[in-house]
């Protein structure tokens, strides 16, 4: 049985709990065991703009904690995934950074290991669990449902570092969508960024990028946009709501997280998957 150290990051527990809940429900049914580590902290992604060493240390600390547990990391957020992979890449090649960070981690009783396996949920489902096993568990195939798989950017690129999928013609996400019985349609801007990194920094630009994606998905005739990252999910949800409240509401496609889609096809109850919680209100969370 596969066991992984579950890395949730910062956004999911605070603002996208359904992603965690749906993942646990689905992986539970697939016999995948998840180990929680309370000491995991921020992957360092937001720090990349601010200070490289702070970013490297944040990422390295998480890698060291997983190393301590002796497990591979299963990451749900693509930004976390991309930043952990980037940190591994830098630490492998920069001896000075490796020594400095290794020394600091040692002071806290941790050992740096830049080579532990870091995997995104989609990779685990596609490669470790496999489409055959997944298909067995699908009891309610979502036949007729048209889904645009949003591959996005941080897991996919730079491909020689993340090694997630083919950067020009990725297939993993599409195959996983089709396992549920839905059809993964081809659409323009599939590989474009959702725009989340600029929300709060340059809202006009961020919204323009997101809108472009939502429009393309709609144009391609999708019923749903499928995501596998909390930032992407929040971005699509929030911008979609704002566009619908605007003067000229376009046809915008509702986003759904992949484990919700998969869980739906596996017959898991909607409440467990948190599907009704999509279109999340970013002001209030259920944390308190």
């Amino acid at each position, binding site marked *: 049985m596969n066991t992984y150290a579950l890395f949730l990051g910062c956004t999911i527990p605070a*603002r996208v709990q359904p992603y965690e809940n749906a993942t646990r429900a689905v992986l539970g049914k697939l016999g995948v065991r998840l180990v929680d580590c309370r000491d995991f902290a921020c992957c360092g992604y937001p720090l990349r703009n601010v200070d490289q060493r702070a970013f490297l240390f944040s990422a390295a600390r998480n890698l060291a904690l997983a190393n301590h547990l002796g497990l591979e990391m299963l990451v749900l957020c693509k930004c976390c995934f991309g930043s952990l992979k980037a940190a591994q890449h830098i630490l492998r090649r920069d001896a000075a950074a490796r020594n400095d960070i290794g020394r600091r981690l040692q002071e806290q009783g941790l050992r740096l290991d830049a080579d532990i396996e870091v995997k995104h949920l989609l990779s685990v489902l596609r490669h470790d669990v496999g489409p055959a096993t997944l298909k067995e568990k699908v009891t309610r195939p979502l036949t007729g449902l048209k889904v645009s798989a949003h591959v996005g950017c941080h897991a996919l*690129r730079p491909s020689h570092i993340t090694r997630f999928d083919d*950067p020009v013609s990725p297939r993993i996400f599409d195959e996983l969508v089709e396992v549920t019985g839905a059809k993964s349609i081809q659409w323009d801007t599939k590989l474009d960024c959702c725009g989340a990194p600029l929300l*709060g920094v340059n*809202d006009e630009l961020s919204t323009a990028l997101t809108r472009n994606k939502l429009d393309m998905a709609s144009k391609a005739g999708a019923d749903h946009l499928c995501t596998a990252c909390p930032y992407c999910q929040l971005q699509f949800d929030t911008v979609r709501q704002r566009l619908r409240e605007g003067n000229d509401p376009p046809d915008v496609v509702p986003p759904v997280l992949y484990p919700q889609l998969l869980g739906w096809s596996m017959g898991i109850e909607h409440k467990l998957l948190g599907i009704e919680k999509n279109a999340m209100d970013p002001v209030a969370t259920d944390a308190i």
Partner: protein
Amino acid sequence: MLFSILFYISLCIFILGTAWKVTTWFTRCIGPASRGIPSSRRVSAALQGMLRTLFSRKIVVVAAAFFLDGILQRRILKESVLRWVMHITLFAGFMLLLLMHALDEWITMRLFAEYSSTVNPFFFLRDFLGVLVLVGLGIAALRRFILKVPRLKTRTPDRIALLLLAIIMVSGLLLEGAKMLSHREYQQMVEDYADTDDAEELRALESYWVQEFGVASPDVSPPFPDETLSLGREVHEMSCAYCHAPSPWAFAGYGTNRAMLPIATFLERVHAVLIFWHIHILACFIGLAYVPFSKMFHILATPVGLAVSAVTDFEHSDPANIATRQAIELDACTQCGTCSLRCSQVGAFEFLDNPYILPSERMAYLCRLGRSGRPGPAALEALRQGAYICSNCDRCTVVCPAGINLRELWISVREDLIQEEAPEPVMLSPFSFLRGLRRPVLERTVDYGGPLSRARIAVLGNGAEGKPSSGEREPLPILGPQETAKDPLLQAEHFAHCFGCRTCTTVCPVVAAFEDPEDGLGLLPHQIMACLGLGLQDMAGRAGMLWDCVTCYQCEEHCPQGVRITDIFYTLKNRVIQEGWNPRQRLTDTREEAKQQTAEDRDPLP
């Protein structure tokens, strides 16, 4: 007489101090949303809220919060069993001693008709509770000084609190032991209460008391013959037993008594009982007066905070009550450091050397702010940056044992700080994501875009859009080999392979979002790379495109020459933030500033 005077003085100080603190709950403003609300409005909203809660089912919620979190402290238990043991022993021990021992005339005597402090179970319980407190203090000292819990700072208020409690407990035990020991005390009691005048009976009684009660007598000493002891017991049972259980029941005080026996005569001569009594009483009174001005105020503020949190929520409650709640929360903080222990930004704290990244440090600062007035610009800057470096993961809020909604507090504090004139370049990063999500709500009360514009102007230096100034241009000076060697960004490996194909700009989604990219963005990706190639790293560093980069790595992925464009952009951004806003430099300034302020205003950064 002296006792009464001192008691009433300290009680007065306690009452006045508490009253002042409660007033600040209605006057203190945190966050832009609270500023327009007059204190009178806050008071009336609070009263209305309290009445509404009292006469509704919500009172059950409040009672549950008070009982489960205030008395049983289940939030602490969730965090760590050791901490829970520490706090429960301190809390239960101290509170029960306060109510049943210090206030025995008002409470215990009225509840139990046969109460006497030297009779069981009270006799035993008093010592038991005192030892509980000492156990709690021991664990506290263990955590702070031996286990060295990460990011838990120990400051003067913490030391004072621990010391004061220790003095009260230890002096109490010494007092008990000394009283048991004192012949003077014994004789006074015999004069007042003995039912006999017979010399032989009195002598027997004294022998019995030396044997069983720890008295040190100059007249009789062990070993005692059995007949003496049985006569003594008879007299004891007639005159004393009603009020006195044998001393070993007060095991801790008896322990000190046995330890002090060798120096009994000396202690008698110096009136040790009086000395210990004075220390004990004074320590208690000082403690009482000190409560409103110390972290011990959390005894009152935290239960109130828990009750208020149970019935208010940031979405639906009256903004006046939310403002009051946040003010109460500042006092409810016990400086336990759990928030910092669980903070997601530990990595940032390790490297950026800015203590305000940690929630507990921000709280400490905010709490001191009430007393010392406006901080200097360097301290403000450190606080602003520290408060912004927060991934809004909510962990601090979830683990806080006092039920403080730290997330909303930081959002308010952060907004306050960025609305001031000084810019915060860290805003131009994904740390602003939550702010972006909350834009519609924020726009109702604050200038949403102002802080962002100020941050942009600060990083660009030559105009808000980062466009090179139009019109005549000076010839650009090219750096020679000496200069390029020093700067890693100008090393050949970064851009030497670039042959200007412009694929980066072509695949960039940000560029594609503009009708006229050069107009909207200023220098485009390939132009920034060209700047580096020409040694114009300052110009590259001031490009607006850096901050509009969505970090999707399309450029780096598709560059036919493998130039790491996105990563170079990150390096340029880091430079800008560090060169203009080097946190280490700022902290040195803060310390300088702090030295110049008066002792009261001093900002004790670690």
